């Protein structure tokens, strides 16, 4: 088992509120990992620290063995970590196609000045839009799309960056059952193609059905981890979160 994302004794406090209290976690490469826990247990803060959006107070963060704790968000993204947001973020006044094309990373000056609607990349972008079922919205501005469509668009954009590891922050949030199904299937497909997932989620059906490995957070640190079958019956987890 190789590690994907790993943190050692990660700490972050906001004023008097301790969000992460010595979180030592290791997610598994090549698997679908889930990060669950009650509200306020530090899951999104964890994501934010790991992707460089906020700076942790102390602790180590490594990805595939290299230290990423001090890296800028764009460097972490380029290292192969993609991420969606809890409150789905897209570029509102750009078309769906442009939203996805924005994930293309040009190399150097020549690459930067090349046309944004370059053939090869447009095809690849449309490919992702099609795979997520929103190719008919390619020229529609993101702000005119429904919530579910925006969630799919956000995911398409992230995937366009060809991330090795994808962090999903509450992919099931505000989503209808049919769409939920599609997302779950998609995650399994992408995982079979070699992508690692770390999913923060409250929807236990989804978590139990697609995860290989679950880490449970409570009050800023992990309290249990293991395969779904184990977590489902773990007393600590039941007490803190799942309810009987």
């Amino acid at each position, binding site marked *: 088992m190789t590690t994907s994302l790993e943190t050692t004794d990660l700490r972050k406090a906001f004023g008097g509120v301790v969000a992460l209290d010595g979180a030592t976690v290791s997610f598994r490469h090549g698997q679908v990992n889930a990060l669950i826990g009650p509200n306020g247990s530090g899951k999104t803060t964890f994501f934010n620290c790991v992707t460089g959006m906020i700076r942790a107070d102390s602790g180590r963060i490594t990805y595939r063995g290299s230290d990423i704790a001090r890296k800028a968000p*764009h460097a972490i993204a380029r290292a192969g970590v993609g991420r969606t947001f809890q409150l789905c*973020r897209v570029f509102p006044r*750009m078309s769906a196609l442009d939203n996805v094309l*924005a994930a293309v990373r*040009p190399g150097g000056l020549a*690459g930067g000045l090349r*046309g944004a609607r370059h053939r090869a990349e447009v095809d690849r972008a449309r490919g992702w839009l099609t795979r997520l079922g929103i190719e008919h919205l390619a020229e529609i501005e993101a702000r005119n799309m429904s919530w579910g469509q925006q969630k799919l668009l956000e995911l398409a954009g992230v995937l366009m960056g060809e991330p090795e590891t994808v962090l999903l922050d509450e992919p099931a949030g505000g989503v209808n059952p049919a*769409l939920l199904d599609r997302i779950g299937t998609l995650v399994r497909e992408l995982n079979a193609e070699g992508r690692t997932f770390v999913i923060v989620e409250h929807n236990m059906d989804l978590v139990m059905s697609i995860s290989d490995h679950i880490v449970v957070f409570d009050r800023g640190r992990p309290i249990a981890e293991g395969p779904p079958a184990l977590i489902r019956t773990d007393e600590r987890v039941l007490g803190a979160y799942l309810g009987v």
Partner: protein
Amino acid sequence: MPNVSKRVLTGVGLVLLAAAAISFPSLAPNPYILSAGIVVVNYAVLATSWNFVGGFTGYISLGHGALAGLGGYATALLVTKAGLPSFVALAVAALLVAALAVPIGLAALRVRGASFVIVSIALVLILLLVFQSWASFTGGSRGLVVPRPFPGLLRPEHHRVFFYLFSGLLALALLAWWLIDRSRFGLGLKAIREDEDKAESLGTPTFAYKLIVFVVSAAFTALAGGLYALWFGDLDPVFQFSILTGSYLVLMALLGGVRNLFGPLAGALIVGIALEYFKGQFGNTPLHLVATGVLLGLVVMFMPDGVLPALGSLVQRFRKAEQGSIREVSASELLAQRKREEVRQ
């Protein structure tokens, strides 16, 4: 608007502009009108240069007047103190200002939104202070006289030559803007405008991008300022480092539409002509300040996207009304539509 008609419009616009630029000096009834035309074209260059930062990244700088002033003074000082030929001085001045824009950008671009606006204002004010006080070097409040690059020319010819020079600079600026607009770099900048953190999380090196476009903007702005110094021949810190000039630029770009290639130009035409009109109406009283303020206020309140987009949507509404309200739908289309609705919430 679909891409084809957009391209056609841009092409037509360019041809019209070129024709107007070439024929204007001959059509102008007197040298005063011609010099007013130069002022308008200068504004157009400045506004377009401003729009590299304002339009692409969404960072509103009220301090671009500072960069123009620096370009003007650098050119003037290189000619008077270093003895460089006029246009060499212009080029060197632009490079110097571009180089200076790097540390300025490093400091200013760390902050966003209104903080950035405040920093830009502070920049102008502090430069005004410096240039007024450092009289020994810059001539202070007495001003600085710049020798003409073509001393033999009479005034009308002088204006003619500079009109073409300014038009050429405008063409260059428009070209650069257009290149960035369609490029991958430009898409990254626009992503910054939409959601800077999200852009960064997708892998865009936001700070580097902002800095690069800021330097490009500064270079063009400095060129305009320097060319103005060569044309006008007389520099005064109060006018060179003027918050008012900086605000005119913003007004012009906003009025015309910051997301359009020709937006700042359109805004410069409208505001430039309006300014001349107000000066005629109100003489040189401060009422032109009131007029500018009112115009800026109206644009901000009612047309924050600018005139060109407002016109564009008007045209679109007109077009849509021509189509029938009930389309005939085939069975297969209906089926496809139903399938899509499943995905929709």
